[in-house]
């Protein structure tokens, strides 16, 4: 089995995303489910530089390895995280197909964050807490997702700008 350049890239970015994911888990949260989601900055950067498949790998590895490190593998948190990540990736794939000039990191960030949050709420409702009171959480959670998605997008856009100025930065073929 040989290790290709893109394997190394994916592993490196996944490692970065996992580190952010674990560090973020240590932050206190004002409301269950509200989390900056800065690990998604890495997903966004990978998406725009190396394409959707690489981004899906990085995101999937982050959810899996992140939950191993936090001890939440196969727990409700893990399933919510996995549902959110899967929905975010689908939203990113849909965003890639939008007509026109295409989205930048900011549009992708907001799309992914909203899809992530919506999928988590739906999963929480149908899998764990089938109580209608959970629907009252939808507006504040979606607002938080919008704001954090915007912030992640702006950070990713800045990072992409810096990376693009590096003369010999690696770029995988296609997008």
């Amino acid at each position, binding site marked *: 089995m040989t290790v290709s350049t893109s394997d190394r890239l994916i592993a490196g970015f996944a490692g970065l995303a996992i580190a952010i994911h674990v560090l973020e888990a240590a932050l206190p949260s004002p409301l269950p489910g509200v989390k900056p989601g800065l690990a998604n900055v890495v997903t966004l950067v990978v998406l725009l530089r190396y394409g959707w498949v690489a981004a899906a790998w990085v995101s999937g590895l982050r959810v899996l390895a992140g939950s191993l490190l936090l001890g939440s593998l196969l727990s409700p948190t893990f399933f919510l995280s996995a549902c959110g990540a899967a929905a975010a990736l689908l939203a990113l794939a849909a*965003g890639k197909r*939008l007509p*026109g*000039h*295409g*989205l*930048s*990191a*900011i*549009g992708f960030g*907001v*799309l992914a964050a*909203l899809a992530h949050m919506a999928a988590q709420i739906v999963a929480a409702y149908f899998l764990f807490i089938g109580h*209608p*009171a959970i*629907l*009252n959480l*939808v*507006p504040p959670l*979606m*607002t938080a997702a*919008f704001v954090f*998605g*915007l912030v992640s997008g*702006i950070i990713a*856009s*800045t990072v*992409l*700008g810096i990376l693009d100025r590096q003369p010999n930065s690696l770029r995988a073929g296609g997008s």
Partner: protein
Amino acid sequence: MKAPTRSDLAVLVLAALLVGVSYAVFWHGGEAGGYALVRSGGETVARFALAGERAVEVPGRLGPSVLRIEPGRVRFVASPCRRKLCVHAGWQAAGGATVACLPNGLSLEIVGVERLYDSINF
């Protein structure tokens, strides 16, 4: 940072609209968002949001009972039972308030509003 594209702006506007709509859909009427649960034979058979004005029919053992719903309150208005105790119980608005119609096998409870008491014994 690169300037956002026109599609970005479109996504942002749509997303903000979606978030705004979620407030309208899920937070209508603020605290008056209680529900009336109707039980028959121990099973919850219906659930009505205490919003808007309408009358609903619920099937019971003897026949349909009619409930009148108004924002934040609910009552029985017609029942096929003999003594109409459920109808005479009148409007109910407090969280945890319960009206039972034993002949018709129905009970009505208000949930989702702050309860004034934990339980009542007679």
